[in-house]
């Protein structure tokens, strides 16, 4: 226990003084780690006088030990005429040390220099001008080494004695002034060498009292004793001429001794006072000051002020509600970034934050949060070095330690430059002049395109499409992007495809892939399969669409009518007109639309021809039926994306059964038919094949008749 005060004129108020003084010439104040502490003691009276309020004096003699020490302490020299005749205190430093003080300056010292140490207290140099350097100079000239050390020690001792005297006098003066602030009188003693022993005090340990226990690492530690009420204000000031203000409040859990601490915040002097705040109100409020201060750090509020959500503070106080619940959103310009430092903004819609915490990638963010004083709604978040998704948690809360915490999370991707992978074609040597390129990138892309360079030149900015994105539930974001570059035309030899990809963070990647077009492996004609009609099919109508599949989508498919004489060419007036060219899709599906069909048997030669001239010819024959059988188009056509649709059409014979895509319909007997739940194929063109069965024909399910 260092310094204590007792209850005094402030009812139930206590005060502890804390000061930090500059160290001078290696001398410290009394105690503490980097601090010296002092206290206010009751029972004194007097007027406060500033310690350093010294009048102008002539400059001190520079080479005297006493003068050097007085200079070091900033004392002012006092001319003889300014010295009091009586009532002062004159400390005389002679060559043998400090002698007891005189109430007046003896005449034999009138030619000595004097310095004012405190109000009415003077230091008189009667050493005759001893200088610190003299012993060493003497040693070099005529003294032995042992003698040098002895002389040096004597000089040090004299300097220490003078310094101690000055400090004790000044400490006494300081405490006297402090006591005076509280209406206490504390006379300066005029005799004795142990000043500390003269600052005895007493206090009532049965009442509220305050104790300082330690000063360490920027904090000072206290105990509040006998705090038996609900709440106490801890008030501080750094200048006793200024009022105290509340710095903290204390809800004692231990009524005998409740520890607490304060941040020193670089304050050189800190005076601490505790005050029972229980039930204290002001300005006609019902809400107590301590409640205002707890949530808002001020007592300058009223019952009718509104909280962060519009309720009165009085109602919050009465309901035990936190009046400062904070609501905010965390905003970043882009959740995809390419630098680890990400600016973010806190848009606060309710409340007034006092503290903020930022936690990265920590599911235990509440427990691990380190709260800092909230200073700005613009913050910078550091994601660290690892790329990928990061969870950024930002918490805000109000003033109390147990204030409502509100947390918001932002999911931010520190994106690395995209990496492009091609999955098709597998080989870099291809044999088709038109290729489909498929690939993927492991991250979401903002854009993708490609350039093509080959014997024909360079084409840039060709379109590519993202066909799918994989949403990863674990990372809670899109990851793999799949893309395609369709119908890339190649020329013989080397072709370079340069893919440009940009991710959502703005990272750009350019990747070259080369493909060599080589027809040497094309030795066989493309395989072809006619899907419909099959040989011998009886077809209603005057034209039909033949469809099938070809192994090489870059091959051409044509159809020619074969006449009975085997001639496939109509040469009418010199014009070949009956060559019908199919539309061929990328997957090899081909469509020969509107092939004419006439009465009787019709024979068609389906000819496929690849890029190097390999040819396949396939003949099919079909028969035109006299039965009229039609299918009405599906309207609206959006139904065609459904798994099944309902169909209808016309039929010229009322007792025929109708099947469509394996589903039996109903001949309505009025020239129409209908069918429900007809399956729809998956491709971009829906194909429905209706088949009419005569009553004597066996149907797919083995039945007969409509």
């Amino acid at each position, binding site marked *: 226990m260092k310094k204590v005060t007792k209850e005094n004129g402030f009812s139930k108020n206590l005060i502890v003084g804390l000061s930090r003084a500059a160290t001078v010439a290696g001398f410290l104040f009394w105690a503490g780690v980097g601090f010296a502490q002092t206290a206010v003691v009751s029972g004194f009276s007097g007027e406060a006088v500033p310690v350093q309020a010294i009048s102008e004096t002539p400059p001190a003699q520079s080479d005297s030990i006493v003068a050097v020490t007085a200079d070091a302490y900033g004392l002012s020299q006092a001319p003889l005429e300014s010295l009091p005749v009586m009532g002062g205190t004159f400390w005389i430093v002679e060559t043998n040390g400090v002698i007891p003080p005189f109430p007046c300056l003896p005449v034999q010292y009138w030619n000595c220099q004097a310095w004012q140490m405190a109000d009415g207290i003077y230091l008189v140099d009667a050493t005759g001008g001893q200088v610190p350097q003299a012993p060493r100079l003497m040693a070099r000239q005529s003294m032995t080494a042992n003698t040098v050390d002895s002389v040096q020690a004597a000089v040090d001792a004299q300097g220490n004695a003078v310094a101690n005297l000055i400090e004790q006098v000044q400490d006494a003066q300081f405490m006297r002034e402090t006591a005076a602030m509280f209406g206490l009188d504390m006379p300066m003693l005029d005799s004795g060498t142990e000043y500390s022993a003269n600052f005895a005090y007493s206090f009532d340990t049965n009442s509220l009292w305050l104790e300082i226990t330690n000063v360490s690492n920027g904090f000072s530690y206290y105990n509040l004793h006998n705090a038996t009420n609900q709440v106490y204000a801890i008030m501080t000031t750094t200048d006793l001429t200024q009022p105290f203000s509340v710095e903290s409040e204390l809800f004692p859990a231990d009524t005998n001794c409740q520890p607490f601490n304060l941040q020193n915040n670089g304050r050189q002097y800190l005076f601490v006072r505790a005050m029972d705040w229980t039930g204290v109100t002001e300005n006609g409020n019902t809400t107590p000051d301590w409640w205002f201060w707890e949530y808002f750090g001020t007592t300058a509020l009223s019952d009718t002020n509104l909280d962060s959500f519009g309720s009165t503070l009085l109602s919050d106080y009465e309901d*035990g509600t936190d009046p400062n619940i904070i609501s905010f959103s965390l905003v970043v310009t882009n959740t995809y970034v390419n630098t680890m430092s990400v600016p973010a903004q806190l848009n606060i819609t309710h409340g007034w934050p006092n503290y903020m915490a930022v936690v990265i990638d920590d599911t235990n963010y509440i427990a691990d949060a380190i709260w800092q004083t909230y200073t700005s709604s613009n913050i910078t978040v550091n994601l660290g070095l690892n790329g990928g998704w990061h969870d950024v948690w930002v918490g805000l809360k109000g003033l109390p330690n147990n204030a409502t915490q509100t*947390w918001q999370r932002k999911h931010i991707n520190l994106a690395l430059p995209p990496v492009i992978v091609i999955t098709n074609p597998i080989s870099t040597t291809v044999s088709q002049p038109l290729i489909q390129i498929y690939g993927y990138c492991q991250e979401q892309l903002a854009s993708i395109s490609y350039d093509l360079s080959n014997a024909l030149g360079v084409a840039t900015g060709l379109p590519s499409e993202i066909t799918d994105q994989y949403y990863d539930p674990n990372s809670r974001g899109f990851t793999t992007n799949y893309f395609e570059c369709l119908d890339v035309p190649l020329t013989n030899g080397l072709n370079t495809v340069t893919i440009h990809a940009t991710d*959502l963070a703005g990272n750009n990647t350019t990747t070259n892939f080369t493909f060599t077009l080589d027809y040497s492996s094309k030795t066989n004609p493309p395989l072809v399969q006619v899907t419909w009609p099959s040989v011998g099919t009886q077809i209603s109508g005057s034209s039909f669409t033949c469809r099938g599949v070809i192994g090489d989508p870059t091959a051409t498919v044509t159809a020619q009518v074969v006449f009975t004489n085997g001639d496939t060419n109509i040469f009418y007036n010199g014009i070949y*007109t009956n060559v019908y060219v199919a539309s061929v899709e990328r997957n090899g599906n081909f469509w020969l639309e509107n092939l004419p069909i006439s009465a009787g048997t019709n024979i068609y030669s389906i000819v496929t021809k690849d890029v*190097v001239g390999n040819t396949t*010819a396939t003949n099919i024959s079909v*028969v035109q*039926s006299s039965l009229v059988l039609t299918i009405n188009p599906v309207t609206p*056509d959006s139904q065609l994306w459904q798994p099944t649709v309902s169909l209808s059409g016309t039929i010229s014979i009322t007792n025929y059964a109708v099947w469509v895509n394996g589903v039996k319909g109903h001949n309505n007997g009025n020239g129409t038919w209908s069918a429900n739940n007809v399956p729809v194929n998956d491709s971009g063109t829906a194909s429905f094949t209706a088949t009419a069965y005569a009553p004597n024909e066996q149907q797919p399910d083995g039945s007969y008749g409509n």
Partner: protein
Amino acid sequence: MKTQLIAFCLFISVGFAGAATQTVLNQDKPSQIYIKKYYMTDSGSYDNTYDPFFGGNNTVTFSASVPNWSDWTSGTATLSSHLTQTGESWFNGQLEPYYDTGDVTVNWSWPKAKWPNLSATQNISYNYVDSPGTSQYGSGSFANSNQPAPVFMEHCDMSVNTSYTGDGVTFISENRTAQATVKLRTGGKATSKLRNLFAITVGANQITPNNPYDVYLGMNPLWGFTGVSGYLFERVNGTNIPSQNIAVGSYGNLNANGVLYKILPDNADVDVTPSIAGVDYYNFGVGRTKYQSYFEVFVNQPNPGTNYTLTDTTGHAFWQFKTDAPADALQYITASLTNFVNRSWGFYPHGSNCGLAGQLQNDSIGNNGNGHPYSVKKVFYIGFPDLINGLEFTRGISNAPPIYCFAAYGYSCVGAATDAGYSVGITLPTWWNPWNWMPQNFGAAVALKYPGPLADETPRYSN
């Protein structure tokens, strides 16, 4: 080079009623927006100790999951909650549980064939005390037919965690993640030439969860249980997000009118999931319009319906490049080409035949006396890039007309119309054929090559 001949078994027959007869409808599917996948998880808790002294407490935990939704496919979803309430009995002052719903769970599952009429089964059990000493227990299940699964077009990646005092001590938290992946099927046939112009539109609203403090007052995931309601957050559809801030897939941002024009291949299946930078929670709707483009060839035959007649030497052939694209989409066509789109053009003599350059003239179309008559019309699908190619061809004829020569092997209206088709990949009968230079014969050749009505308005694919 190798040639193979596959000869099917040929037979000669005559069609007759009594044998199975077939007909086929091949109908191109339109473009379509669909949800490729919807993923959602939502979990949270609400814990209110309203009477710290006696331990009165309300606790709600809930979770919801739609792990894998896709339009027109089978899938499952679950939603569950559990509410317990304990408190001081007014009767004897003892702390006792007086409400416990048990686990309330709704499971959805649906087979592909049943989509979208999904069946939900709700399982519920409860345990509560409604008066001192009287406990009510129950359990059961019931089916809600045709209750749709909780699928939204949305993006959500939010967490809120807060605690506060007020009517006791409350801790409330929620983590919600949702993402709909939206795709566009472009429809049609996947031929290499057909790339069409699409207008993609997106409307999006940023959703702001209500402050938890407000929500807690009315929150009850059981009592207000309907579908997916009852989450801790009340969703408030907030501000409409400016269209320029909305990106569509990898195609860039919408324009100020909320439209993104993009040329896409037919029968492709591409990602059009909207994304909005920096926004954590929004819902959206995606629309599309496919604008097809066409090449139309018109032939005015002196003797319509007759075949080749060498004596017929008059008539006319002309063409038109047409698109369904609206005016604001045509800004993507250079100004020098817009004059030629959606207008018919013909090549005419300008001075002497076979001596001077001809001239391109706009031909108004019609058989009603107000426009140029025609006897043969064929319409072909072309892609939007081909449309531009065709317009450039037309502009070329206009800017640098060749010598007009209405004669065998000469370049006249037939040659120009044929080349117009060629510029967009449409194969018409060759004009340099010694017979086809005459419109009468050219029209007949077109009709033979592309069967159907002479004036056929039905678009067909390029052959």
